[in-house]
């Protein structure tokens, strides 16, 4: 075998293989490896060429054989070079793909974060919308309350003005009376008393009971209206309109004469529940005695 041929085969093997230490092979679990020498590789090339030539026996002279071996060797080196380049290209593409995959993972992570942030913002937006809606309702309610309050204040102001005018008129009457002689005043009182007696007689004839009922109904209605107005003017969710409701409920109880029932004469079914309250009660009492615990 020629020296240059052996060298070229060694170069090809060098460029197309990678060096692996024995330790690494052991780590991979390899216990046996197959090895091939450069001369053996060249022998294989030559054998392939010989085999090809043998198929065409007699067609080529020895000179031709050497030339074919040389050309085949060159061809082998060329193919090996192309192979090495191709493998280099594959390695670079693999690196590129790995970079792209890493980039895609980063983008996906950013997308996830952005999606989470979007959801949080949507929730906050929905909450804010709900808050606005609640405020809208509250504002409307307060506006209605203010309108009612204003109406009540106007009514009260008008009533106050009426009272002031009435008081003024009464003062004038009293002043007039004081100025008149006592006998005149007595006569006037007698006349007024006579008028009242006549009026009462007329009312009696018209049906005193009817009038009394009407008067009571009218009074009830007015009282109801007043209590409702007071409630509307003063009620707030945090208020405790106990006094107003006390009056309202008292009126129901005051009408006991208008009501009749048989509840006193009837019994209501009494049941005994299986669930007892001892455990809860004992535990609550114990918890009350314990020092307060911090909230979680």
């Amino acid at each position, binding site marked *: 075998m020629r020296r240059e041929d052996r060298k070229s085969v060694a170069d090809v093997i060098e460029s197309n293989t990678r060096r692996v230490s024995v330790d690494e092979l052991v780590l991979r679990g390899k216990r046996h490896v197959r090895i091939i020498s450069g001369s053996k590789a060249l022998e294989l090339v030559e054998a392939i060429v010989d085999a090809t030539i043998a198929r065409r026996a007699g067609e080529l002279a020895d000179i031709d054989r050497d030339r074919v071996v040389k050309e085949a060797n060159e061809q082998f080196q060329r193919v090996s070079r192309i192979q090495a380049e191709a493998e280099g290209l594959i390695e670079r593409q693999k690196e590129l793909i790995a970079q792209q995959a890493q980039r895609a993972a980063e983008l996906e992570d950013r997308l996830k974060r952005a999606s989470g942030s979007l959801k949080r913002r949507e929730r906050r937006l929905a909450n804010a919308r709900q808050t606005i809606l609640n405020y809208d309702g509250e504002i409307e309610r307060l506006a209605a309350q203010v309108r009612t309050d204003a109406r009540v204040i106007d009514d009260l102001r008008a009533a106050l003005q009426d009272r002031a005018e009435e008081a003024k008129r009464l003062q004038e009457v009293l002043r007039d009376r004081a100025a008149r002689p006592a006998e005149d005043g007595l006569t006037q009182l007698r006349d007024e008393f006579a008028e009242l007696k006549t009026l009462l007689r007329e009312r009696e004839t018209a049906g005193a009971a009817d009038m009394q009922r009407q008067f009571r109904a009218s009074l009830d209605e007015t009282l109801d209206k007043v209590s409702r107005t007071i409630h509307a003017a003063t009620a707030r969710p945090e208020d405790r309109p106990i006094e107003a409701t006390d009056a309202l*409920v008292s009126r129901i109880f005051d009408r006991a004469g208008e*009501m009749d029932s048989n509840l006193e004469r009837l019994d*209501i079914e009494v049941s005994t529940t299986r*669930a007892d309250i001892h455990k*809860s009660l004992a535990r609550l009492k114990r918890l009350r005695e314990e020092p307060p615990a911090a909230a979680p």
Partner: protein
Amino acid sequence: MTADPQRIEFDTFEDVAAPLPRAADGKPPRTEVEVVPGKGLDVGTANLLSAVQRKDGRVTVKRERNMFLEVPSTAQRSRSMLTRLNVPYVSYRDRLYVLGDSSFSLANMFGSEVRRPMSEGFLSPREQEAIPMLRFIVERPLGPRTVDHPPASLPLPLPSPAHENPPSYHRGVIESLLKKLGYEPHPINEGHAVVYAELAEQDFTGIGISCGGGMFNVCVAYRTIPAVTFSVSRGGDWIDEHVAKVMGLSRTRATDIKEAEGLNLTDPRSREEEAVVLYYRNLIEYVLRNLAKRFALAPDVPSFTDPVEIVLAGGTSLVGGFVEVFAQELKKVEFPLKVASVRRSEDALTAVVRGCLIAAALDQ
């Protein structure tokens, strides 16, 4: 006892009192049982319950439906007959009204509608005779005051965000009514009453939900302290209203179907029951959605280290399959707390009134 363990009817109670023999004056002889001072009262939209603790430790409960029915004035002549039939009535302003369970039975029989002093947890603004009738309906289970039990803890319904009726008026009327009857009212939140009655094992930490006729009241408590309390103004009545509408029935009839023995939300047997199931599921989903929303909005929700228990109580939770459907719907909601389990009170109808009784006993 009924076959369905989910459904607790009144006939499952022990020691149900038999009708008492009557004395010559027509009044039943009163058997005085020694009781511990303090009474609990649950003024619900659908039912009124009162509870006392006997000296022997047992808790006795009286219940009446919170409704009435006007009967024709010709029945005025039949008052003695009504008394003989044990039907409570009230005559007011020349009109005759039958109260409570009897009004429900009569209305159901004649296909008419009962009248309700309360709606959506509060005094009904649409009912003219709400206060006078409520006075009698409250008086019936509560009974006359004795010197031994002046306090009567009553649950206080909380306003839901959408509610227009101010709760202070309702609360004021009920408190005035009780004061007039000789009691000293101490309000307590309905959900909190459930926590008192049902979460002793958990040191009163967890979520109590009172599923009532007019509203659902929720209380999240940490060691007895209510951290978040709120309500939604939908309940059993909402189901009745919609079932009646879609099936062309009276509301009283729809209530009767909803409360029928054997109804199970996981296995409806008729068209009417299917409608009931549909609206029950819708109601539970609505309540849970609001619950989650409320948690999202509330700034003061405690973050519990351990998963919490949810206890359901109230008449609307009595239907078979309620807990299962509740748990199914809970899984669909993004709930901010870890839930260890969902269960119904052993005696769901009386849980609130028992909680009130506990509160009354604590005040002693």
